[in-house]
């Protein structure tokens, strides 16, 4: 049964107890992303301090995969430099879109490696990336406004 490969324990843990959930003040930019096929949504706020990702807060409506991956995101990027955060994002995205071909580097994406199984289900890849794309978009906006 492949189900357990996809829904690794780490994913289910993050899903049941998402880290960093909720919308917080202060923030520099807020984005709202949707998954047009299933209607899942995330509203995400970013607070930068200089070049550091100071806080990521979010409210999301979605499946276990999208909720868990946003939770993992906050663990990975808060406290990092924007450059470092984007390197993590790229690495996570590469794995997620690899159709199971890229295992993901645990040193870079930490708990994110648990999503390697998801990458074999193309319809779920967008779920795994929903929060990440909202984050990317939010940071780009802060930078553009600056």
């Amino acid at each position, binding site marked *: *049964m*492949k*189900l357990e490969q*996809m*829904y690794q324990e780490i994913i*289910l843990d993050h899903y*049941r107890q998402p880290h960093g959930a909720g919308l917080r003040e202060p923030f520099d930019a807020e984005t709202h992303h949707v998954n047009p*096929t*299933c*209607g*899942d*949504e995330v509203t995400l706020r970013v607070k930068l301090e200089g070049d550091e990702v100071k806080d990521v807060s979010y409210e999301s*409506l*979605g*499946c*276990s*995969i999208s909720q868990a991956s946003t939770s993992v995101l906050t663990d990975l990027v808060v406290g990092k430099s924007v450059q470092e955060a984007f390197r993590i994002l790229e690495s996570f995205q590469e794995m997620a879109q690899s159709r199971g071909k890229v295992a993901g580097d645990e040193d870079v994406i930490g708990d994110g490696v648990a999503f390697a199984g998801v990458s074999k*289900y193309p319809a*779920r890849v967008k*779920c795994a990336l929903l929060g990440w794309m909202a984050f990317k978009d939010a940071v780009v906006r802060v930078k553009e406004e600056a």
Partner: protein
Amino acid sequence: MTAVQAHEGLDLTAIRGDFPILSRTVREDRPLVYLDSGATSQRPRQVLDAERRFLETHNAAVHRGAHQLAEEATDDYEAARAKIAVLVGAEPEELVFTKNATEGINLVAYAFSNSSIRTGLGPETERFVLGPGDEIVVTELEHHANLVPWQELCRRTGATLRWYSVTDDGRIDLDSLELTERTRIVAFAHQSNVTAAIAPVAELVRRARAVGALTVLDACQSVPHMPVNLTELGVDFAAFSGHKMLGPSGVGVLYGRTELLEAMPPFLTGGSMIEMVRMEGSTYAPPPQRFEAGVPMTSQAVGLGAAVDYLSAIGMDRVFAHEQELARVALDTLAEVPGVRIVGPTDLTDRGGAVAFVVDGVHAHDVGQVLDDRGIAVRVGHHCAWPLHRRFGIAATVRASFHVYNTADEVAQLAEGVRAAKEFFGVA
């Protein structure tokens, strides 16, 4: 052809034998349980064979050539139109071949916006002119295909979009809106692709006529699943797709009353839809040719004709009875699973055979994944009816939908699968 039992039920062994895809397995040896016919149906051998036979013996450009193949291809193409006309109670020349129902609805919408730019048009097109103050009415349960084209038509003409809202059991709420003298179009689904509620067509047509509005019926989920007589229903336009009725993808049908089609300006323009072309300007052929620009979906029309033969041999009343029975099984078995909420009517009155639901504590996508893992193919998401989902305060539902080849046993597996999903996600 199709073997059906002498008495009530369908001979499912024979029918299933006609559909090659049903014998495949998915996800490591699970037999396929295909409960996603509302999205697209599967095709019987008879349809595949008819298309192939056409392509191996008669294929040519239709309505253009004078050689024997061209004659034969044209005959086959028009014979398909005639068969479909019989199925839906219309005249062949009232049916336009489109690529899908979406194109059909857009064709009607563009007839209005093209007419609203008056330069170079005859007086017969005046009845299609729209402007600020005019109203287009839809419902909150529409598929995007019968909503977005009207939003865009409003944008292009300045008309206003209004809508009937939806009752708690997923039906059109007839008390939620009064049509006015400014209502010009009333567009609605014959059967919701989510709640499976069947619309009170007679009443909606009566109201539209009372204010002089034209009606557009989205028949995507009715023509494939029940007896439909468009002339008796009295609608002005109707659209449906081949791929949902055991026929090929890439072909759909727009029905329009002759008098209306004759008055409408063209939509897509090009070859085969003209009367006379000069560099300075062109005149157009009568319907349905006027609306079939370019080389059409020839073999697909022929395949759709074969699908009509297949369905007619079974009988649309029996197709409907079969699907209602499957809906009953789904509703009954799901009712026993705690935390399952049906979006749509829970009894069979004026209801077709799709069952949409949510499971408390497990997102539809996750339910769908567990079902898929068991070989059960359902659709999860908003099913292109996002506003309906918003109306119920949910992002996504799980939808099981059926066709002639589904068995009660398959449907019963659905509830088991939902139980397994709840277990997997620890929602007891």
